[in-house]
């Protein structure tokens, strides 16, 4: 390919016209020189400048928005930060009447529900990503399955919550009861499942982050160069020697990025958890006991909060913001790096 004309405008178009006329001198005529190509008028240039300036203003709005979010939440949380300081994250009372606020159980619940959901969703997500990329299906069936998994993400969170209350909890209650009765000595099963709890919340949460993990891992796996796979197949490897040995190993950092992004989603997910986790301020190892998360705490307490509780909730929001922004930032950076490495190294 010849070098494409990068910067346009009159000089270039004129030279193209003259080249053309040189090649076919027979057609050179005065009318040909008067071409429709004309330099932009002053108005055009001014409009151009104005429009591009406007576009930059709107682009900057995004940056301003992120900064304002940090400033507003941080600013409103400031009185509570001064008041409670570090004890906010090390104690476990939330008592609006005595103005005692701390969020250790919420942080614990947020992390444990998200990590549990992440473990389940990664297991399923990676298998689904393999299923969708490693020639298990014809392209048309593959499209159908891709749509199904993506639609999982389209169902609103509050509908998952409703479904969780009336379907998931009754379904897993017999299993949970059996586990508690027979293996109750293990701390994970030490309490009976009375209704809402950590396990149903994590199960529903894992369904909600599954599409993210599956889609990002799928992209990472499809970015694995075909030559690598074919070379392995050519050596006589079976499909399941190639997939863990070559495909997953090459795509591992992308899959790790998918996990981090999925974790970010899980940490910030609100409604389904607010409906399913039981909103109880306790730190417990048991999978079946009610717990609470930062996001659910905000959803439940914010509407009726007084002035002081509101500041404490803003502090909790700031902690949630810091955790999710940190996790998402790490995930974005990992994925950017992986794509750059895989696409840059092979072409």
């Amino acid at each position, binding site marked *: 390919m010849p070098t494409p004309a990068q910067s346009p405008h009159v000089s270039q178009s004129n030279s193209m016209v003259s080249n053309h006329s040189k090649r076919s001198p027979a057609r050179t005529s005065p009318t040909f020189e008067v071409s429709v190509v004309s330099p932009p008028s002053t108005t*055009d240039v001014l409009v151009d400048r104005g429009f591009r300036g406007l576009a930059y203003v709107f682009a900057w709005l995004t940056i301003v928005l*992120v900064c304002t979010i940090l400033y507003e939440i941080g600013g409103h949380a400031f009185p509570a930060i001064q008041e409670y300081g570090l004890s906010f994250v090390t104690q476990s009372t939330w008592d609006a009447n005595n103005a005692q606020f701390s969020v250790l159980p919420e942080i614990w619940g947020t992390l444990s529900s998200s990590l549990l959901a992440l473990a389940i969703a990664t297991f399923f997500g990676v*298998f689904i990503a393999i299923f969708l990329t490693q020639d298990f299906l014809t392209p048309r069936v593959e499209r159908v399955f891709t749509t199904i998994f993506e639609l999982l993400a389209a169902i609103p969170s509050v509908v998952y919550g409703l479904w969780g209350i009336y379907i998931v909890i009754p379904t897993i209650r017999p299993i949970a009861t059996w586990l508690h009765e027979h293996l109750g000595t293990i701390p994970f099963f030490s309490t009976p499942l009375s209704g809402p709890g950590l396990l149903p919340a994590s199960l529903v949460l894992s369904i909600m982050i599954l599409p993210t993990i599956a889609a990002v891992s799928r992209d990472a796996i499809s970015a694995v160069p075909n030559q690598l796979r074919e070379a392995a197949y050519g050596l006589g490897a079976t499909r399941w020697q190639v997939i863990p040995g070559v495909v997953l190993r090459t795509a591992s950092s992308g899959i790790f990025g998918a996990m981090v992004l999925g974790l970010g989603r899980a940490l910030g997910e609100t*409604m389904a958890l607010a409906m399913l986790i039981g909103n109880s301020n306790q730190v417990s190892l048991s999978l079946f006991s009610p717990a609470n998360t930062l996001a659910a705490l905000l959803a439940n307490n914010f509407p009726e909060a007084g002035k002081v509780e509101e500041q404490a909730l803003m502090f909790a929001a700031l902690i949630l913001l810091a955790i999710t922004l940190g996790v998402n930032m790490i995930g974005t950076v990992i994925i950017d790096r992986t794509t750059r490495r895989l696409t840059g190294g092979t072409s």
Partner: protein
Amino acid sequence: MNSPATTTADINTPLNIKWSLRHRSTLVSVGLSGLTYFIAVVACIPLFSVLTMLIWRGGQHLSLRLFTETPPSAFAEGGGFGNAIVGTIVMVGIAALISVPCGIMGAIVLAECGPESRTATIVRFCAKLLTGFPSILAGVFTYASVVLVTGTYSAPAGGIALSILMLPIVMLTAEEAMKSVPRKMREAAYGMGATQTQVIWHVILPTALPSMLTGVMLAVARAAGETAPLLFTALNSNYWIIQDGQQALMEPTASLAVLIYNFSGVPFKNQLELAWAAALVLVLLVLTVNLCGRALADSQKHY
């Protein structure tokens, strides 16, 4: 050198490439493939379970009065959620009015004006951060910056909260759409002496329009289902947004999602059934918009 017969035998012995289940690796491979199919099918169950439950429990009570009446009080019979549907549409409309122009103008910078510039890099990073931004925090932020300032829960506040969630989706999909416009078209226009603005308006935007629309529809579908940002920005209401000829835009506003949340935990049968019916309507709405957006994107690929 031996005789040809031995040579072929030597080559043949290690090259045993017959497919047989008796090889351990083949057996493992078949087993794991079966497991993969099984897992894929299991992962489809939640979607179908949600849909069948919605149709079963919500579909029973689907009737016209749901769309024309306001929510009932605790022990009352009947009632509907017409005001919540209107509220959802109004707030998503406000959100789209804010986020679509901002998102597309931002995407113009990301894709056209200076894809490699520092502004673009920072904006892209901010947009990616916002995609993972917890929806409840959009509500908290809007509460602090809009509700506290205007002094009231309102539909515009809800719309602003939703627009924060829509903005990154619109912006990043529009960027991809503009980047996929063939370079030749761009260069042809520049070669005619067009300014960058003319190229954007007459070449890039018309060509990228269907894909950008897909992004907008996906964003609308997401926003319509969001509850958390509305909980303490629009709150809830049992009245229409226009009641007795008076508009109540700056009053608390109902939405389908918040209605489902409020009615999901109540012990009153009628309200609970309304929650299921509302969930069915909401999911139908969201899935229709979502699938239309996807169909639009698919129809583009044939060109």
